[in-house]
C-alpha cells in the first residue's frame, strides 16, 4: 500500500500511509484506538475506498472496490466482530458465498470436503455438523479463520483475533499463524496486547493519528519503545499503585451461596470497601455469569446478595441499581450502549428519574450539565454531549459506559472485561479511575481475561473454574503460573 490517504467528515483518518508485506511474514500493526489501523485494513479489504494512494499486489497496481474483489485478489479479512451466521453449520459458514454447486444446487458434501481440507491444513478439530452458535467464542474465532482461508487467501488480516480467546486458544491460534507463515501467507495482525508481539511478530508497524510512526523488525524494538511510539509519550508504569485496604474496612458486597440457574455449584465471597477483587479464569469458566447474577441481569437459582449488610432482591436490575450496584458489561456495543443515542442520553439512561422535573418532563439542560461534568472528569474525547455513541471510538465508548455508572452514587462496581479492545492510553485512564473509586470506598469486582491486568489491578484474586471459586490468592501470592495452573485445572 502506497501513500494511502482517507478523510471522514471532520477527521483526517489516514495521511500518506505506506506499508509493505512480504510473503511468509507476520506484520503486527499496533496503535491506539483511532490511530487509523482499522480504516487502513478496511481499505485493503475493499470495505472502504481510499481518497488517495494505491495498492499493489505482487508488484501490480490493483483496484479494490468491493469486499468480493478483495476476496478474488486473495485478501482474507478476519474482523473483530464475527461475520458468522449463527444458525448455519460450520461447513455452511466456511463456504458461505462460495458454495460449491452441482446442477445449480448446493453440493453439501463438496462443501464439507472443502471445509475438512482447510481444517486439516490448520490442524483444527471442531464439531462439524452443529450450528456455530453452539460453539464457544474461541471456536467461532477459529471457524472465522478457516472461512478466510477457504477462499485461498494469500494475504490475511486479523483484527485483534485474541481479544475473546483464552490462553490455551491463543496458543492454538499462534500455532496456526506460524503454520500459515511457513506456507508463504502474508499476515497482518492487529493487536493491543504487547506480550503477543514478541511471540509472533516479524515486523512491527506503529500508527498514530493516521500516520506511520515506526516500521521496524520486531527484534529491534522493545515493548517500552513500541508503547512510547504509540502514545507519543513514555508511560511510566502500566498499572497505577493500589491504595491499601484499611484493616477495619467494612464488608461492602457480600455474596452467599449464589447459584446460577441451571448450575449446581454455589459461590460465596465478599468485597470490602476500597478493595478490588479480580475474577480470573478461562473463557466459559462462569465469571460473567457470576457477576451478571450479582447485578440482577440474570435471576440466580438461589443465594443472596448483600450491600452493606442489607440483602437485595436478586434477579432484578432495577433493585440492584437502587441498592448501589453498577454493572459495566463486557460487550459495550451489545449491552452497554444504545449506539443510536447521544452521549448525553446514554449517560443519563440508568438514572433518568433524577433528571425529571416536577412537571414530569426530562430537564435536558440539567442532563447536559451533568454530562459535561463527566466528559471533563473522564476526559471523554467527544465533540459534545449530542454526539451519537456510534461515532465514538471503542475506548471513548467505554468511558461513556463508565460515565453512565459514575452518575449515580454506586458503591459496588462490577467490571466485566473493562479494557477489552481499547488502546493503552484509555486503558491506563480506566485503571486510574478504578483506583480512584476504590480510594473513595467503593467495592470493585473485575472480571478479566488479561492475566497481567488481573494481577496488576487486584488486591485479591479469585480463580473461577466450572462456575465455582477454585482458589483464592492474595496479591502477594498471585503469580501468573499459580493462577493459570488453577484456571486450567492443572492444580487445585
Amino acid at each position, binding site marked *: 500500500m502506497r501513500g494511502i490517504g482517507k478523510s471522514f467528515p471532520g477527521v483526517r483518518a489516514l495521511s500518506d500511509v505506506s506499508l509493505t508485506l512480504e510473503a511468509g511474514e507476520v506484520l503486527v500493526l499496533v496503535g491506539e484506538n483511532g490511530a487509523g489501523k482499522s480504516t487502513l485494513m478496511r481499505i485493503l479489504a475493499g470495505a472502504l475506498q481510499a481518497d488517495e494512494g494505491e495498492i499493489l499486489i505482487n508488484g501490480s497496481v490493483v483496484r479494490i472496490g468491493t469486499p468480493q474483489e478483495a476476496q478474488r485478489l486473495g485478501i482474507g479479512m478476519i474482523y473483530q466482530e464475527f461475520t458468522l451466521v449463527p444458525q448455519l453449520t460450520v461447513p455452511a459458514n466456511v463456504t458461505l458465498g462460495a458454495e460449491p454447486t452441482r446442477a445449480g444446487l448446493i453440493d453439501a458434501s463438496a462443501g464439507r470436503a472443502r471445509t475438512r481440507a482447510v481444517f486439516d491444513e490448520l490442524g483444527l478439530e471442531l464439531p462439524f455438523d452443529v450450528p456455530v452458535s453452539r460453539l464457544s467464542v474461541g471456536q467461532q474465532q477459529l471457524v472465522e479463520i478457516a472461512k478466510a482461508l477457504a477462499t485461498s487467501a494469500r494475504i490475511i488480516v486479523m483484527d485483534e483475533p485474541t481479544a475473546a480467546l483464552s490462553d490455551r486458544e491463543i496458543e492454538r491460534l499462534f500455532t496456526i499463524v506460524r503454520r500459515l507463515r511457513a506456507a508463504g501467507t502474508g499476515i497482518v495482525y492487529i493487536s493491543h496486547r504487547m506480550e503477543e508481539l514478541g511471540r509472533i511478530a516479524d515486523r512491527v508497524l506503529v500508527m498514530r493519528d493516521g500516520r506511520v510512526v515506526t516500521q521496524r523488525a520486531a527484534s529491534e524494538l522493545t515493548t517500552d519503545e513500541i508503547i512510547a511510539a504509540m502514545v507519543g509519550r513514555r508511560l511510566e508504569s502500566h498499572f497505577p499503585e493500589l491504595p491499601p485496604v484499611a484493616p477495619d474496612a467494612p464488608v461492602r458486597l457480600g455474596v452467599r451461596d449464589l447459584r446460577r440457574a441451571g448450575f449446581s455449584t454455589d459461590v460465596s465471597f465478599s468485597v470490602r470497601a476500597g478493595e478490588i477483587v479480580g475474577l480470573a479464569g478461562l473463557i466459559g469458566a462462569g465469571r460473567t455469569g457470576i457477576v451478571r447474577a450479582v447485578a440482577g441481569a440474570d435471576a440466580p437459582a438461589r443465594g443472596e446478595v448483600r450491600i452493606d449488610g442489607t440483602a437485595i432482591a436478586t434477579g432484578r436490575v432495577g433493585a440492584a441499581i437502587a441498592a448501589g450496584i453498577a454493572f459495566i458489561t463486557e460487550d459495550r456495543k451489545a449491552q452497554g450502549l444504545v449506539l443510536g443515542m447521544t452521549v448525553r442520553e446514554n449517560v443519563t439512561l440508568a438514572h433518568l428519574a433524577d433528571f*425529571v422535573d416536577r412537571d414530569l418532563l426530562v430537564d435536558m439542560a440539567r442532563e447536559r450539565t451533568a454530562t459535561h461534568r463527566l466528559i471533563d472528569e473522564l476526559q471523554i474525547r467527544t465533540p459534545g454531549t449530542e454526539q451519537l455513541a456510534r461515532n465514538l471510538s471503542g475506548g471513548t465508548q467505554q468511558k461513556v459506559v463508565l460515565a453512565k455508572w459514575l452518575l449515580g452514587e454506586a458503591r459496588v462496581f462490577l467490571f466485566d472485561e473493562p479494557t477489552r479492545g481499547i488502546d493503552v492510553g484509555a486503558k491506563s485512564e480506566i485503571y486510574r479511575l478504578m483506583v480512584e473509586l476504590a480510594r473513595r470506598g467503593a467495592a470493585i469486582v473485575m472480571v478479566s481475561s488479561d492475566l497481567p491486568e488481573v494481577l496488576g489491578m487486584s488486591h485479591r484474586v479469585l480463580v473461577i473454574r466450572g462456575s465455582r471459586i477454585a482458589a483464592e490468592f492474595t496479591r502477594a501470592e498471585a503469580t501468573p503460573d499459580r493462577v493459570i495452573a488453577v484456571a486450567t485445572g492443572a492444580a487445585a
Partner: protein
Amino acid sequence: MNERGRLSYWLRIAAAVVLFVVLVAIVDASSRGAFLEPSNIVRVLRQITYNCILGVGQTFVIITSGIDLSVGSLVALTGVVAALFANSVHLSGFPLIAATLAVCLAVGAAAGWVNALPVVKLNLPPFITTLAMLEMAVGAAFILSHGRPIALQSTAFQNTGIGSFFGGVTTALHLPNVPIPVIWMLVVIGVASVLLTRTRFGRYVFAIGGNEEAARLAGINVGRVKTAVYMISGACAAIVGFLYMALFSAGSPQTGTGDELLESIAAVVVGGTSLMGGRGSVIGTFFGALLIGVLYNAMNLLNVDSYLQKVLLGAVILLAVVLDELRKRYLAR
C-alpha cells in the same frame, strides 16, 4: 451533528420546501386555484385525521422495533362497543360523550395490553400476536353487531363527528371552520410528541428500540414500557373508532378494516421512523400522513384515474423511503 450532517439537514429542508412549493403551484394552477382554497386545505386535514391518529400510536410501537397490525380492527371493535354502550345507558349530553369515550379507550387499551402480553412474557414476535388480535377484534365486532351497523339513538355525538371548533371566530374571519376531529388529531399529536421527546417514558421507548439489552441493564422495566406502547396504540385506535362512530352516527364492524392499517404504517415510515426501531418522531408521522393526504387530494383535483392513484401513491411511498436511505448512506460515508 457534524458539519456534513448539519449541511445535509438544511439541504434536505430546503429541497423539501422548494419541491413542495413547486408541486403546490403546479397543482394549484392546474386545478384553477381550487387546491389552495382554505376549504380544500381543511378537507385534506380532515381526511388525514384518522390515519394520522392511528399512525401516531403506531409510531410508539415501531420505535420499540415492534409493529401493531390490529389497529384497523380495533377501530371497528371500539366503534361497535361504543355504539352499543351509548344506546344502552341512560345518559345524555356531555356525560354520555365522556362515558362513551372512556369505554372506547378502555377497550382499545385493554386490547393493546393483550397484544403486548405474549410479546413481553414469551418474547413472541408482535407481528403474530397483533395479527391474531386483528382477526379476533374484527370477529368480535361482527359478533357484537350481528354484522350490521349499530345506529346511535342519541344525537349528542353529532357535533363531535362533524361539528367544528371556534365556529364564530372563523366565520367572522371568512375562514373555513376547523372540524372537531382535526382538533382531536392536533391534540393527540401534541400530547404524543411531548410524551415521546420530553419524558422518561419516551426516552425509554427509544432506548428499547435502539438496544433492548442495554436498556434492560440500565434498570429500565422493558416489559412495562413495551406494554405501554401497545396500549397507547390501542388507545389511538379507540379514539379513531370513537370519531368514526360520531361521524357516521353509527358503530359499524366494517369501519377501519380497509386501507387504514397499511396507510397509517405508510405515514409512519414516510415520516422517517425506522422499522428497525430506535429512531422516529410523531411530527414526522404527521407529515407522512399529510404527504399522502395531499397527494390523494391533488390527484382528485386533477381528475387522475382512481386506479392510477393507487399506483402513484405506492411509487411515492417507495421514493420517500429510498431517498431517506440514500441520505443516510451519504451521511455514513
